[in-house]
């Protein structure tokens, strides 16, 4: 029963993250939303670890945290560069990739 609560919490966090990624215009907010999604996944992994009684999920969670840190570092650097070039970090205006 306890594990189900963890999973529900993770699902809520994931949905919030997805909303943030899709709806926010600010690049920093999008990055933060991605962090929410990642954390929801990490929470899921730990919950499954608890359910199965093995340490695998926890190890995965640690990896995800480490990679998330690196990912945020890269993402913030890109945002910084975009800001320096354009003086804005609004994602609506970044549409050079339009096909």
């Amino acid at each position: 029963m306890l594990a189900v609560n963890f999973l529900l919490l993770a699902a809520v966090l994931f949905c919030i993250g997805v909303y943030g990624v899709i709806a926010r215009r600010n690049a920093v907010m999008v990055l933060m939303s991605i962090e929410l999604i990642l954390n929801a996944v990490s929470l899921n992994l730990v919950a499954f670890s608890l359910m199965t009684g093995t340490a695998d999920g926890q190890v995965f969670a640690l990896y995800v945290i480490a990679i998330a840190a690196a990912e945020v570092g890269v993402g913030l650097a890109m945002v910084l560069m975009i800001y320096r070039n354009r003086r804005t970090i609004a994602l609506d205006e970044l549409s050079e990739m339009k096909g």
Partner: protein
Amino acid sequence: MLGAEVLELSSGWFLENAWLTGLIPVIGFAIILFFGKKLPMKGAEVGLASMAASLVVAVGAGVQWMQRTNSAESHSEEAVGLIQAFGRSLPSATEGESKSFISPVTTTWVWWQNSGLEFGIGSAVDGLAILILALVAFIALLVMVFSVDYVRDDRRYTHFFAAITLFAGGMLIMVMAENMVQLILGWEIMGLTSFMLIGHWWEEEANSRAALKAFFTVRVGDVGLLVGTAIIFFGANQWAVDNLDSNGFNIAAIQAWALSGEANTQFLLWGAVALFIAAIGKSGQFPLHTWLPDAMAGPTPVSSLLHSSTMVVAGVFLVARIYPVFWEGFNIGTGGLSFIAIIGAITIVIAALLAFVQDDIKKVLAYSTVSQLGYMMLGLGTGAWLPAVFHIFTHAFFKCALFLCAGSVSHSGSHHSFDMKKDMGGLRKKMPVTFAAWCVSTLALTGVFPFAGFWSKDEIIDNVGANGYTFLMWVALGGAALTAMYMTRATYLTFFGEPRGAAAGLGHDDAHGEEHEMELISVGAPEPRSLGAAANARNGGEGSASDEPHGGHGGSAADDGSDHHGGPHESGKLILVPIVILAFFAIFAGFANPTPLASRFGEGVELLKKYVEPRATAVVTEEFLASGPGELVVLVDGVAYAPSVTPTAEAGEEGAKKSGCGFDAPEAGTVCFFPGVSHAEPTFAKILLSLAVVAIGYALAIGFCVLFYGRRDSRLVGLTERNKALRGGFLFLKNKYYLDHLYENVIVRAVAHPIAKFAYWVNQHVLDATVNGVGVGTRKAGVWVYDNIDQKIVDGAVNGSGWAASEAGHAMQPTQSGKVSQYGALLFGAATVGAIVLVLVNVS
């Protein structure tokens, strides 16, 4: 059924590899052609080496053939026949005194095979082939040694040696032929190379005309060869397949078919006629002999080789090789007056008469060759096979020697002239070796005892008479007297009397090509006037009278050290040695088959009869092993004995019915390869008669020469101008019976020109129209294909696929908005859909 006892016959490496004699000169030809000019002797050494190698193989094969024949004799009294021919073993059968058949040793490489019809190339050697192989290689080698000095400094020295090597190779290939296809190959190689050699100095128009004339005249005969081969093939093929598992091109099968008694007489007759036309063209028989004297335009070594052992002998060899076809086709066995004998007899007389009016020493010899070839054909046409072959053998030596002597005289004695009346005379003291060799060869040619020609020519005459052709025998005897006369005339004009022209040392300082007064060769024998004026007219008259009127040698005569002396002198060693060797054989070659001595010393002295003449013995046919294309088949022995065949009757018995091969059909299951030719018994009276005829000829001719040329007897000089009948006869001969006029003005005009016109019309209106029509049609088809298939279907498919891809891209374009949030929404939407699908699949 026929208890066959198989015995072994000896063979040997040389016999099985006799094909090397033909292959080596062909390789030598290629080497000379490609590398000759870089070699120290400019290619001559390759020619000499290849011919020497061929000679070694041929002589080795000859020795082994004699061992093979002896091995058959030694097996038993009831001699054992043996045959291993054309890829199948045929044990032979004999009885009583008839001798065993010695099978040819066949080495064949089958290069083409289709539905049982095989074409092989290789060697099928029996006594006849080996005799001619060794003869050709020997004569060609000596002629090449002669040429090294004779054509030195010629501008086409290397090409000369290349062509003469291939020429000898062509003859060797033809002689060893196992089937008609290979025979035609060798025959045509000779035709081509003789054209190259006769026209060696083609800058002179007369020479290239002579080469063309030789080529086209022989070509007329070649049509006969092709037609005859085709006729024989269609006649013999089915029989050969049924009885021998062979085919109608195989020479041994043709021989057996002709003697089988099952051959269609029409095929035999017309096949024999067509093949004999080929022999007429090649061997210079009447009426196609006109090319031979003109062929003297070539260098003397070429004349020598062409007239002694190759080319002209090819026609005689063809007849001797497939003799059963002629034997049956012309009924020679039953004493029929054959086409061959008539042509041979006519040729003997007309050529001998023509030799009297020639001033060119080489043309005298050329007509002499034609006449001697007539003897060979007469012999073959009357059943005297062995004497005819023997005459090929002896004639090669003395005729080659005579030509080389003529070459020697012109080289060193008469300053490259061949005109006996203008530039020769009195040379016997200046050129003693040449003179001696010439005399020996002349005595051999005229048939004086004991020189070579006596044994062979008298054999022919004797056998012609013994076979019942009395009239032809007298014709041949008359020819012998004529031979003695014209050779005396030539000898007298060349070596006796007063030196004239170049022989007297005149003209040696003249530059060649200087304008000389043209001396018209008009009617009449030599008058004092023309003799006196001869010196200045050396280069006048016929272009072919002078051997080397131009070119490297003629123009740079001073390069030849021997010409510094000015006057006539003896030739160098390279020229004399071959002449002396040939003169030696001109004396002794006759002892290869001295039939008149057989009664005293036994039959053992008749070497050619024992080793060369195929035995007229029926042979049992048996199973054989088939060979496929590309296989090398070496067939050697296979001997058997079957006591069921009647022996051949000995000839000479008047009225006795002859039986055996060539007269009766061989028993079922057996075949014959050679008819039972008869051999005349020589008698002392006959020999004396022919010697007396020759002696009378000599006496008449010597008396005439002394009176006419020596003393200028007023009763004789100018006789042809005073007496109308004689004048007419002389003109008739001088113009060579008007045959050249007939050919050039009548036949060529009447036949060739309309044919040419018709051919041109056909070319323009039929062939060109067809070609143009095909071209136009093809173009239209091309345009249609371009419009309809290429443009519409192929291009449509290509463009359509491009268009489809482009449209699909445009349809998807809106999704690529470039907005990150939209991409995220798509990503998560897709993930959601994927998750739902996953859940549904797993749950259900």
